[in-house]
């Protein structure tokens, strides 16, 4: 999908107008953020916004996230185990110390 974010009032207004006129191409709308269909028409709308508002419009292309494909099993297991911890207030740092799970710092350094 195409993620479009407006960074000025004018850009937000144009974004609203475009969404109103082309609901079929809008997947989701959150205030000044919109997800457009990844079609040529979605790209047409995003490019129009970019041309009109320059740096006040950010466009990113999103991809579905598959945790079974994008990350190593250790990360997935760490997440699953931590979410089933018994003490909800236990910070990840402490939770991890008695296990083999990767540290936050390790994971922060590793790009997907």
């Amino acid at each position, binding site marked *: 999908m195409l993620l479009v974010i407006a960074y000025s009032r004018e850009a937000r207004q144009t974004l609203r107008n475009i969404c109103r006129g082309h609901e079929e191409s809008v997947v989701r709308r959150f205030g000044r953020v919109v997800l457009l269909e990844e079609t040529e028409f979605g790209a047409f709308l995003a490019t129009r916004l970019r041309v009109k508002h320059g*740096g006040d419009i950010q466009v990113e292309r999103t991809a579905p996230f598959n945790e079974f494909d994008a990350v190593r099993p250790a990360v997935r297991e760490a997440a699953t185990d931590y979410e089933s911890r018994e003490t909800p207030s236990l910070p990840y740092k402490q939770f991890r110390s008695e296990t083999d799970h990767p540290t936050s710092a390790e994971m922060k350094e590793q790009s997907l």
Partner: protein
Amino acid sequence: MICRVGDVVRCGEVVSIEPEVTATTVADAVRTESTDADDRIEVSCPTPSLLHEAVGCLYPGMGVQTKTALARAARTRGMTTPYDEDLEAARAKLTDVCVESISLRQHREVMAGTEETVEQARVRAAEARGRVRECEENGLATDEANSRLAAALQYLSEAETAAIAAEQAYTSAREQRRAQLDNREQRFRLQDRVANYEREAHAYLVDQLRDEFSETLTTLSEMMADQLSDALSTPIRSPFDVEPVPAALAVGHLGNLSAPVVLAIDWFESPSKASEWLDTSVIHI
């Protein structure tokens, strides 16, 4: 006020001009300081207040945003609101936000171009390699094919280097842009804050003048029962639903217009009566 249309110059508090020009053209001339002697219309007068933009030109079929105009009228009378201080502070902060413009357009375009060049270079290298193999299989001399292959590989390697450089430049520009987007985010929030205060102040001013506006409309309707009979024959729920011309006349009466009002309606006995009511000079068409 000095008003010149073509070669005809008229001076005074109240001037009448021939209906050869439209009211809005004359109003534009009031609002712009012309130095061009070639302009057809020229009006020398005091600088119009913001209110003039809203109700400084009266003609049949005109439009007016009554509440906005009334809030502006309040400002011309020096009225203030409890939101003014916050509004000023937010505006000041907004002008302090520095948003640099880092355009990624160039980077995106260059990167897409270099990627395409690499693709083409790969195809060319594969073809050259195929030709070398063909020559070998057919027992032909491979010298020329080999030198072509070498050239194609050289070209591919250059294209790849260029593509890597373009991608690195794009990535670092994107990182810079991230900081810049934070500034834009802050500017955006301040813009919203200013707009909110403006709305609050606006509503406050309208509230302050609501009764006076209502009374002025009543006075106006008594003054010109004939002209207003149509406009007032249907019951009005709120004074702000009144038609544009009486609304503008009432707002103009309440605020200070500073500059001449262009009048293309004949509601008053005479243009000088209109000038009296609006407490400013009048250009009557």
